[in-house]
C-alpha cells in the first residue's frame, strides 16, 4: 500500500493503517532505541512509547519531511526524555559519595553480537548517545545539541571521546 495513503488513513484514526506503519518502521525505531539505551528492555519500552507518541502526534505530521525522519526524530526525543527521567530516578538512588556510578558504562545488552555493537553498548551514556546520533544516524552536532540540551562543543568532545574508547576497545 502507498505509504502516503497509510499515513493519511492513520491520521483519520485507522489503527490498521497505523499498525502497517509500525510493521514498516519498527526495526529502525527499535535499533535506534537499542543503541541509544544499550538495554533491550528499555529499548522495547521506548519503542512502544515512541509509537504511542507518534499516534498522538500524527496530526502534526504535514509531510514537509519524510515520515521516517519525523518518526525517528520523535523516537530520539522519546529516548532522551526517558533517559532524563531514568537519570533523575538513578540520582535519587545512587549514594552521594558515589557520583561516578552515573557515568559508569553499562553491561552490554544481550543479543548484540558484533564487536562494534558491544563496544558501542559499553560506552558511557553521554558518549554513546552522541556517537549513535552522529556517526550511526547522521545527525549534525547542532541538531544533537538541540535534541540533548548540550553545547555543540560538548557534542564534539563526546563524539571524539566515544571514537577513542571504541578504537581502544576494538584494538584489545
Amino acid at each position, binding site marked *: 500500500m502507498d505509504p502516503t495513503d497509510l499515513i493519511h488513513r492513520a491520521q483519520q484514526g485507522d489503527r490498521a493503517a497505523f499498525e502497517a506503519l*509500525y510493521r514498516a518502521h*519498527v526495526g529502525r525505531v*527499535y535499533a535506534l532505541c537499542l543503541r541509544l539505551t544499550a538495554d533491550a528492555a528499555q529499548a522495547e519500552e521506548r519503542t512502544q512509547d515512541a509509537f504511542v507518541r507518534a*499516534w498522538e502526534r500524527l496530526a*502534526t505530521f504535514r509531510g514537509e519531511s519524510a515520515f521516517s525522519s519525523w518518526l525517528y526524530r520523535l523516537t530520539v526525543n522519546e529516548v532522551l526524555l526517558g533517559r532524563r527521567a531514568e537519570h533523575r530516578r538513578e540520582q535519587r538512588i545512587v549514594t552521594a559519595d558515589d557520583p561516578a556510578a552515573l557515568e559508569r558504562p553499562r553491561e552490554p545488552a544481550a543479543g548484540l553480537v558484533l564487536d562494534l555493537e558491544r563496544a558501542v553498548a559499553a560506552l558511557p551514556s553521554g558518549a554513546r548517545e552522541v556517537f549513535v546520533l552522529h*556517526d550511526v544516524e547522521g545527525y549534525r552536532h547542532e541538531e544533537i545539541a538541540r535534541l540533548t540540551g548540550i553545547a555543540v562543543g560538548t557534542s564534539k568532545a563526546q563524539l*571524539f571521546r566515544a571514537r577513542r574508547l571504541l*578504537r581502544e576497545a576494538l584494538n584489545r
Partner: protein
Amino acid sequence: MMCPHMEAKLNEYVDGALAAPDRASLEAHLAECAGCRAAVTELRSLSAATATLPRSIEPARDLWTGIAGRIGKRETGYGKRFSRGALAAAAVLVIALGVYRLLSPFTAQYRPAEGGVGWAAVQADVDRATEELSRILAAERDRLRPETVALLERNLAVIDAAIAESRAALARDPANAELHQLFSAAARQKVELLRWAARAAAS
C-alpha cells in the same frame, strides 16, 4: 600513538570538517607523524565499520500488542488537538480563578472557612488546576526544546519550594495575612510560568 593535542583536528579531518588551510597544515603534519597517520587510519576503519551496522534490528518480541492496548484508549492528534487545547484553556481558567480568589479582598483578609468555602478551598482549587495543567504540559513537553524544559523544571522547583514553605507556615499560623500574600505571589508565578509553557508547547 597520536600526538595528544591532535585528537580534535584528526577527527575533524576524517569528518571532512576542516577548512582548506587547516587541512593542508594537518596533511603536512601527517606526512611526518606516523602516530597520527595510524590514528587517521583507525578512525577511517571505525567509520567504515560503523557504516556496516544494520540499520534495522527486530525486537525479540512483538511490541504491537502493548502499543495497540495503549492507543486504543487515545485519540489521534486530529481529534485530540481541540480537546486538549480546550482542556488547557479550562485549566488556565480554573487556576486563574483560584488566583483571583487568592488575591481578592476576602481571601487576602483571611476568614475561617464557611461551609467549605475559604482558604482551604482556594488552595485546593489551585492544587487541582496546577495538577491538571502540569499533566497537560507533561504530555506536550517534547514539543519544547530540551533546554527550555530544563529551565522550566528548575524554575518550577524553586516556585514549588516557595509554595511549600509558605503553605507550611500557613499551617502553623493560618490567620497571618502576610503569609497569604506570600503564598499568592508564589502561586501567581507558578500560574504564569505554567500558562506560558502550555501555550508554548501548544503553538
